[in-house]
Structure formats: structure tokens, C-alpha cells
């Protein structure tokens, strides 16, 4: 998608990308990505999801320019103002501009989502593929540990961890990451078990490759696509868990403009001042939905069965 | 030939996908009576698509058009999906390559055969069971009572294919389309399955379309053979004359099969050029 817009000579580039006889590994890979993008762009809801997320990223980057007010500035004279041209989304119980808070809150949301993905997904894939490929005692050990983590309800475990580590957004991220890797490990292991008996893995073993090379070079890339899909779909859940922790006062601490904490703050005014809780709640809803749409779209593009 | 069981005129199937259109079947015409007809060709020759087009069992991306496609005097081409459903099974049945994918894994095989009988006949469960056991015996299963209660995973490939045949023949169709029914099986088992098919088809006066990649098998088993290549019919000939065929494509295929009796080295290979298609148009 991006190269198409970036270069002026569209048709030459297109035929280069879709060439049947690529002249280099780079061209082959670019062509593969390009046809993936073509498939993806046909899925409207996935494109919608991606656009919302890109839009969110843009907002997060440009937050200081977009937000009309300081998100932390309290103005008790103007508390609980309704929607008006001055305050697009009204003000909250301390007179802070809700629109600005939502705009700055997007940074926190992305921070949580990004960190959880960066911590939990690699941990899950490494543990899952090692466990699945090596089998035996290592498999039993790793999977029992995974089972222990899976035996607790996610939110309860996160609560316990935050309670132990102390409230705060970093600790919330750690708590969520710790509770979400076991699911990824399970997926990666299941995938590895089927891949392990495939002829192409036998073939590379017969070339003399050791377990490290096979796992990193041959099995992980194939687990990656289903994992990306799963992580994307889970992001909605991560946002909700983060919001839930914020709502319970264990996530981001006031006055930071975290969406979950904002809904929590608006709880007392839900009947008379609906916007205080509804608007941050809608932001959570829209972003979660976007991740779900994107995940479904990615599933269709990255479906590992298509490659065979 | 008396009234044809199945007659197809100028059948075309076009798949339209993201990467353009694929013309899978190009102008196929043939008609058959109550006989065994074989369709042979290599992968991509359109033989399977032809078989499925007759039953209209193709995905939505496929467009079927033909001048005529009549089965027993009924026009298949303009039948709705609902009308086709009453033809499938009772009028025309189909046996696929691998029985393990065609059987429901959580039901006993006996139940599935009985169900396919009851779907077409209004009979009691007891009667369906009796017919099923008869049918299992007809496909030479020695202990039908025992096999009735087995699950698909508990039967071997050869047994599974017999069960599929029993299931497809129990509604007494007039035409059976068998798509590579024995390719997944060992040669000795292959033989038994074909014998059973031959016996049942002859005894019941059915038509059979056997789709296969195996020239030798088709020429030994069928009455007539249709050779397909690139979506087109290359030639239609009597099976006994297949080995004397003069058609360059058929000859090419026959020549490149290794034989126990000795072979040239290197083996002759097939020259896939346009001359083949031209020979078709000129001849």
C-alpha cells in the first residue's frame, strides 16, 4: 500500500512487485507483502479497523497540537460543563476538558497496548515453540507453568499482581503481559506440533540443522501469522483490562488521563452528566472494535493454510 | 444410441478470482447412456471440474454455461439449487477420492448410510437399517452388523471407500460420478473396489463416469474414454482402442508411462505445445 503511493511510476512498480520471476530476495519479499496488502485492502472492515488505529496513532503523536487545553488543568468554576464549541466533549467534575483528556489518553492506551504486545507475544512464541518442538520433559515443565497461569481468571491475577507491585500504569502493563503470554504459548505450541511432523521440517532436519535453527528460522515464521492475528484480537481485551484496572483505581493514577480511570471518575455523575462517562467509554469501544476488525482482516490475509 | 442418460453440449466453466479469470472447461460436449465412461487427464485438465459442473457442485466464483446439459430428459442447466438437491444423490451420486474427508467423523458409518437412504425415501428407521445392511453386504463387507456401528476413523481406506460407495448407491441413482475413487488406495485394494463398482453398476443398469488420471485403469475398466487436456476434450474413443490411439496427446501420455516390460532410456516425455491443441482443431 505504501510503496504504491510513494513512487510516481505506478504501473512499472506494480509489475515489478507482481513479477513471476523476481530477480532478488528483496523483490520476492516485497511482492509477497504487496499481494498481501492487495488482499487486505479488499476487506473493507479490516481497512476501517486499520484506519481507526492509524488515526489513533496520529492523534497520539500530535496530541499537544490537537488538544485545545491542558488535560491536567483543573478549572472548578467550569466543572461538568455540557458539550459546547469551547469544550467539544464537555468538562469533567474538576472542570478538565474531556476532549483534551481523551486525546492525551490515546497515548496511554497505545503505550499499554504496545508494551503488552512487545512483552507477551515474544515470550509466548518462544516458550510455545520450544516446548512444542523439543517435547518431552521440557514440554511438560513449560506447559505446567503455562497451566498454572491459565488457571487464574485474567483480571483477578492482574489485580493480585498490581496489588503486590503497587498501582501505576507500568505495573498494570506488567500484570497484563504476565497474564496474557500463556495463551500465546499455547497457540504457538499447538502450531509447532503440527509443523513438526511436516515434510519440510523433516527435510531441514535431514540437512543437519539443529533445533535452534529449525525453531527460529523455520517454525517461528509460520507461527507468527496466527500469533499476530491472535494478539491483534486480544488487544481489544488488553484495552478493556487496562481500562478495568484504571476503573478500579489500580491502573493509571489520577490525574493522568487514562480512559478507564476517566470512566471511573464519571461514574458518580452518570445520570445527570452523561458525557463524563460516555465519551471516554465510547473511545474505549471504538478502539477495541477497531482492533477486532483489524484482527479479523489479518486472519484472512495471513491464514497460514493459504501458503501451502 | 437410445435416449441418452446424460448429454452435455458445449459446457464451459469459468472461475473468476482476484487474479483474473480461469477458463477451466472449454466447450466440452459428450453424451452417454447406461455405460461406463472414463474421463482421463492430468491435473488441471478440467476433468474434476467437469464432473462437479454436472452436479453444479462448484463454488460461487465459478460460472457454468452450456448449450445443453440434460440428464434423463431434465434440463440441469436451469435447475435451481433446491431442485438440484433432489437430483443429487437420487438422480446422480458422486464418490470422492478420500472417504475420510467425505464421512462425518462423529457418526457411525451405518447411521450415515441409513440417513442417506432416508433422505430420499420415506421409510422407517428399521427398514433403513435393513437396507443399509443389505447394501454393506453388496459392497462385499463380510460382517455388516459389526461395520454398521463403526466410526469412520475405525475403518481402513479400502473399507471407507466401500462404505462411500454403499452410501452413494443406496438411493439407487441412475448415474454415479466417481472422482478418483481408488487413487488413495493400494493396488490390490484398488482392484477389489473397481470390481465392486463394476458389478453394481452393471447389475443395476446405471451409468458411471469414472474420473481418473490413470490411463491404464480407465482403459481396462470403462467402455468409452474421454481424454481431456487444458479444459478441452482431446478425443473420445472406445476403451479397447485407447492403446492404438493416434491422437498425439493420448499417444504422448501412453508413451511416457514406464512399463515392466522394458523402457527406452530416457523415457519419452510429453511435448506440451500448441501443436496438441491445433491437432485437436484440425483433426
Amino acid at each position, binding site marked *: 500500500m505504501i510503496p504504491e503511493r510513494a513512487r510516481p511510476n505506478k504501473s512499472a512498480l506494480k509489475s515489478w512487485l507482481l513479477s513471476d520471476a523476481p530477480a532478488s530476495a528483496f523483490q520476492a519479499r516485497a511482492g509477497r507483502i504487496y499481494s498481501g496488502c492487495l488482499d487486505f485492502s479488499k476487506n473493507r472492515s479490516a481497512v476501517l479497523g486499520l484506519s481507526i488505529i492509524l488515526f489513533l496513532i496520529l492523534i497520539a503523536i500530535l496530541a499537544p497540537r490537537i488538544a485545545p487545553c491542558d488535560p491536567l488543568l483543573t478549572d472548578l468554576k467550569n466543572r461538568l460543563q455540557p458539550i459546547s464549541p469551547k469544550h467539544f466533549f464537555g468538562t469533567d467534575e474538576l472542570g478538565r476538558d474531556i476532549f483534551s483528556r481523551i486525546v492525551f489518553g490515546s497515548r496511554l492506551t497505545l503505550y499499554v497496548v504496545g508494551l503488552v504486545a512487545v512483552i507477551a507475544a515474544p515470550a509466548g512464541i518462544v516458550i510455545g515453540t520450544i516446548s512444542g518442538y523439543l517435547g518431552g520433559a521440557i514440554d511438560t515443565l513449560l506447559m505446567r507453568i503455562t497451566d498454572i497461569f491459565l488457571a487464574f481468571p485474567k483480571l483477578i491475577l492482574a489485580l493480585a499482581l498490581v496489588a503486590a507491585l503497587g498501582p501505576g500504569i507500568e505495573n498494570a502493563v506488567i500484570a497484563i503481559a504476565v497474564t496474557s503470554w500463556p495463551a500465546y504459548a499455547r497457540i504457538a505450541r499447538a502450531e509447532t506440533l503440527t509443523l513438526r511432523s511436516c515434510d519440510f521440517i523433516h527435510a531441514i532436519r535431514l540437512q543437519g540443522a539443529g533445533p535452534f535453527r529449525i525453531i527460529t528460522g523455520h517454525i517461528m515464521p509460520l507461527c507468527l501469522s496466527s500469533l499476530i492475528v491472535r494478539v491483534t484480537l486480544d488487544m481489544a481485551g488488553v484495552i478493556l483490562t487496562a481500562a478495568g484496572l484504571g476503573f478500579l483505581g489500580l491502573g493509571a493514577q489520577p490525574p493522568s488521563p487514562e480512559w478507564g480511570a476517566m470512566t471511573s471518575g464519571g461514574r458518580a455523575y452518570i445520570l445527570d452528566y452523561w458525557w463524563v462517562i460516555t465519551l471516554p467509554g465510547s473511545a474505549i469501544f471504538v478502539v477495541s472494535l477497531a482492533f477486532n476488525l483489524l484482527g479479523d482482516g489479518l486472519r484472512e490475509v495471513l491464514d497460514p493454510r493459504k501458503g501451502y | 444410441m437410445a435416449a441418452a442418460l446424460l448429454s452435455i453440449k458445449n459446457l464451459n466453466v469459468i472461475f473468476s478470482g482476484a487474479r483474473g479469470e480461469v477458463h477451466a472447461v472449454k466447450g466440452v460436449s459428450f453424451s452417454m447412456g447406461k455405460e461406463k465412461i472414463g474421463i482421463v487427464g492430468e491435473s488441471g485438465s478440467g476433468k474434476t471440474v467437469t464432473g462437479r459442473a454436472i452436479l453444479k457442485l462448484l463454488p460461487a466464483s465459478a460460472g457454468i454455461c452450456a448449450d445443453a446439459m440434460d440428464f434423463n430428459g431434465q434440463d440441469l442447466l436451469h435447475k435451481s439449487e433446491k431442485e438440484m438437491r433432489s437430483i443429487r444423490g437420487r438422480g446422480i451420486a458422486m464418490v470422492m477420492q478420500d472417504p475420510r474427508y467425505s464421512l462425518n467423523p462423529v457418526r457411525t458409518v451405518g447411521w450415515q448410510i441409513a440417513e442417506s437412504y432416508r433422505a430420499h425415501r420415506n421409510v422407517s428407521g428399521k427398514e433403513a437399517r435393513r437396507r443399509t445392511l443389505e447394501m454393506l453386504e453388496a459392497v462385499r463387507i463380510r460382517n455388516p452388523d459389526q461395520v454398521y456401528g463403526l466410526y469412520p476413523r475405525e475403518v481402513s481406506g479400502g473399507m471407507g471407500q466401500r462404505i462411500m460407495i454403499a452410501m452413494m448407491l443406496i438411493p439407487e441413482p441412475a448415474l454415479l460420478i466417481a472422482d478418483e475413487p481408488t487413487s488413495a488406495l493400494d493396488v490390490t485394494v484398488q482392484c477389489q473396489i473397481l470390481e465392486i463398482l463394476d458389478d453394481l453398476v452393471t447389475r443395476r443398469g446405471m451409468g458411471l463416469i469414472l474420473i481418473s488420471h490413470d490411463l491404464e485403469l480407465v482403459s481396462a475398466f470403462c467402455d468409452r474414454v474421454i481424454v481431456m487436456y487444458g479444459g478441452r476434450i482431446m478425443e473420445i474413443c472406445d476403451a479397447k482402442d485407447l492403446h492404438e490411439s493416434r491422437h498425439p496427446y493420448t499417444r504422448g501420455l501412453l508413451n*511416457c508411462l514406464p512399463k515392466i516390460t522394458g523402457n527406452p532410456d530416457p523415457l519419452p516425455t*510429453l511435448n506440451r505445445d500448441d501443436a496438441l491443441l491445433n491437432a485437436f482443431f484440425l483433426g
Partner: protein
Amino acid sequence: MLTITRLDMVFGAGAAQSHAVNNVSFEIQKGTSFGLIGESGCGKSTVLNCITGLLTGWTGEIRIGGRAQQRKRDLSFYRAVQMVFQDPYGSLHPRHTIDRTLREPLAIHGLNDAVRRVEKTLDAVGLDSRFRFRYPHQLSGGQRQRAAIARALILEPEVILLDEPTSALDVSIQAEILNLLKRIQKERSLTYLLVSHDLAVVSHMCGVIAVMNQGAVVEELTPENLRQGDIRHPYIRELMAAGRNFR
């Protein structure tokens, strides 16, 4: 070149025990082809897996080029013995280009001059440079099998194990692949162990044919014996009859 002596392989234990390979011995001379034939479940693939080291529970002796092989193989084994699989759709990594697939063994064995070797090997199996950076899904079945043969050749082994290399291919492609295998055998004086269920293919390729049934080699014969009908074991007669009856 390859000597198997009293190879035994037992799966499972107790009531579920099955003797997959039962006292199998044979010897393959350098530069010749040896055929192993039998129906599915006769143990022929198990023999291959014991030779390659994918299975470890075997007993008996496997000698390659005079060296007895241990359960665990070292790197030099893989340079001497390579394998071509039955299903060309499953034996190539779906996310790797042909180039990557061929470079991988070179990287494992620390061989330099990768580009030249890849090009030379592709050329030897009749794939021109257009195919080098394609993914498997951009190739036909026959081209994939050529790529798989190239992968087996790139380490310049002495023995190649062929597991039904053409049974998933069309007959015209089968002829091309068989010709290719014969040609490279002659050029490189390779030793083949060909496993197949097709008597005609094996008799075309091999000088000696061993017939397996229920885990044991029931008879060893030559294509000449087959032609003359000089067969002792009834099972082979049955196989041949089955081949003739409806074929």
C-alpha cells in the same frame, strides 16, 4: 555404499506393539539404484526413517560408505545422505523462496560460494534463474519436485533416498523427473534407494528390487526376473496380477 544388516524396529509395547521392520538386510553398490517396494504399511517408509535418523529406536546395523552409523548422526552424515520426499507440496517451506531453501543447507555446513552453488544446482535440475526467487506456491508440482531434488543435491551427497518421488505427480511429469534422476545419477555416480509402490517405476529405475510385506523383505529380484515372471513369492504375483487386472 549402503549396507543394512538385520534392521529391526518395533513401535509401542505390550498388546499395541507392532513390529514395523523385521530383520531387514540389504546392500546397495555405489552408483546403483535399489528399489524397495510394497503396499502402504509394509514398513518401507520406516526403513527410510531409520536410515535418515529420524527414528532412533532401531536395532541392527546401518553402514554408509563402510562407516557404521550411530543413533545420533553427525554433520558429515547429512553431507553423504540426502532425501527427496513424496509430496512436493509439503516438502518445501511455504514461506521460503527456492533460493533460501537451497542456501539453508549451505549455511548449516558452512560452505562458501553460495550463489554459484545455488545457480549450478538449479541448472542441474533444469530450473532456470527465473525460478530462483519464487515461493513454492508459484511453482507447479513438477517444478517443486525439481527444487526438492536440487535441495538434496546441493550438499553433493553420495546417497539419495527417494521416497515415492513421483507418486504425487502426473504421468508426463513423472517421466521427466525419472529421466532427471537417471541423468544426475549417471553424471554424479549417485547411489539411490528408491521406495515406491509402483512396480513399473521401480523396474525402470533399479537394478535390484526388494519386495517388502508386513515389515520383512520377502524377495529380492531384478527387473529381468519380473519380465520373465520368475517370481517365487505369491505376494508379488498378487501385486503383479492386481496391476494387470484392471490396468
